[in-house]
């Protein structure tokens, strides 16, 4: 029991660790970024190498086809490579690249599909969230049975696209409220908190009837 509350590593952190091991084994992200800005090609390759698959997966979640995502990643890297002296110092390279890619993708969609994209049904546009059974859930004291998990899954997928995106940034990517606001181009941090709050409200309402099984959740 003593071990049971300790957050264990789990699959969703795998690629995170991969990035960290590449970027943090010998030096910090910030110093690699600095070396890249000073024109060192190996630092650029290192940044590409350690972020490419992360960016690809992230871009694909927005419902674009693989070619569009690859094109925009390509444009993004060409841009930072050509403008390296003028780029700001960044605290997290990964965050900076994800934010830039997101913006490029959403902008490319607007210009490509023009007005049509405004009328696309929401469901076609953004990611799905799923509560999955991670291996670690077997290790920890199993708190939910499959029925609860399915319920949680359903209520998460009822969220609006923006709420879903915020939920993924907060719980999956590990961003703070401030970073979510930055990433999603919200004017106020308060708006990011509101998105998460609404998401939790939806879960709470859906699970209200499950007192016996999840009695702390009310």
């Amino acid at each position: 029991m003593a071990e049971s509350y300790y957050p264990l590593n789990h699959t969703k952190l795998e690629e995170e660790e991969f990035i960290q091991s590449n970027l943090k084994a010998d030096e910090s992200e910030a110093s690699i970024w600095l070396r890249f800005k000073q024109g060192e090609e190996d630092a650029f390759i290192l940044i590409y190498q350690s972020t490419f698959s992360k960016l690809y997966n992230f871009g694909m979640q927005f419902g674009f086809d693989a070619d569009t995502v690859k094109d925009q990643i390509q444009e993004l890297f060409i841009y930072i490579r050509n403008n390296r002296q003028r780029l700001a110092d960044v605290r997290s390279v990964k965050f900076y690249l994800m934010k830039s890619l997101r913006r490029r993708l959403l902008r490319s969609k607007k210009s490509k599909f023009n007005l049509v994209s405004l009328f696309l049904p929401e469901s076609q546009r953004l990611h799905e969230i799923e509560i999955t059974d991670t291996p670690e859930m077997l290790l920890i004291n199993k708190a939910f049975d499959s029925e609860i998990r399915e319920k949680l899954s359903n209520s998460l997928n009822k969220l609006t696209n923006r709420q879903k995106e915020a939920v993924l940034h907060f719980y999956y990517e590990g961003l703070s409220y401030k970073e979510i606001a930055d990433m999603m181009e919200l004017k106020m941090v308060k708006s990011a908190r509101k998105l998460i709050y609404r998401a939790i409200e939806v879960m709470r309402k859906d699970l209200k009837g499950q007192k016996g099984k999840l009695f702390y959740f009310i």
Partner: protein
Amino acid sequence: MNYDEFKVEDFLFDEFFVRWVNNPGPESNHFWENWIKGHPDKITVINQASEIIRSIQFKNRYVPTDQDYTVVLEKVLNQQTSWSQDLQHNGEKTFSLWVRYAAAILILAVFAAIFLYVGHASFQEAFSPVSTIIKETPFGQKLTFELADGTVVKLNAGSTLKYPDKFEDRERKVFLEGEAFFNVKRDESRPFIVETVQLTTTVLGTSFNVEAYGNDNSTVAVQSGKVQVRKANSEMDSDTFFLTSNQMLTISSETNSIYKFDGIPDDLFAWKDNIISFSKADFKQITHRLEKWYGVDFKIQKQGQFEGLFTGRYQDEPLDIVLEGLKDEYNFHFTINDKVVLIY
């Protein structure tokens, strides 16, 4: 934060807790381990909350192939933009036979033109690679010149402007350190862009002033027309501002915050007409301006404060005339010796 009454949903909303679950560090481990030791009854709540957090992920995980990785990297290293690929791509698909004939004739025509043109200076110019021109003014000197597109630039003292000898087809981009006044030749198909370290100013055709000296605050002021100003390296709407005539914007070099003003101080554009103008300036601001304007250094050897604000306006006057005016206001003596002004 008092976590004693927290339910699952409260933990889910708490940034500090979520961060610990996602990315535990020595400090947060220490805090939460201690907290849980003191609240053994909360273990189930903590477990449920952290399990929800850790269970949330994308439904589909997309993994790029090794080929994706290599192909994109190669294109990046060869600077092949997808824009140029699209053109090639569409070209192959849609060019019908008669378009090919037309293209062949056009190519012949181009060869003919080349024959006629060879040896002609402007031909060589037009096909020579673009090179960057750097105009630089030392302190004490100003410079007025015209760019390839007809835009007139007046560069204030101690400033640098970099620009290509031939602008691109899609935009006219220059890079400024220091201060300059631009009278931009109107060309709607090619926006004129002034980049400084902190701000990017985009216009079609207008006249405006950009000030971005080293570590000072940067300012963009518009005399006529409309410009768009954006924080450098940002494409966010919230970092984008529009200025019309008689409006200005200042960005703080320390905090990066932006301030927009309706109305421009009278003396802001004065420099371009060789007028040095102070309105309610303190002594430090005045000497700072004079150092840049005349290319001199001030050495202050007078005890005590220089109090009071000074208002004055000089056109094409030498430095000693300006100092004569200031001398009575601030009660000092001065000598000018080879670019050093001694105040005593």
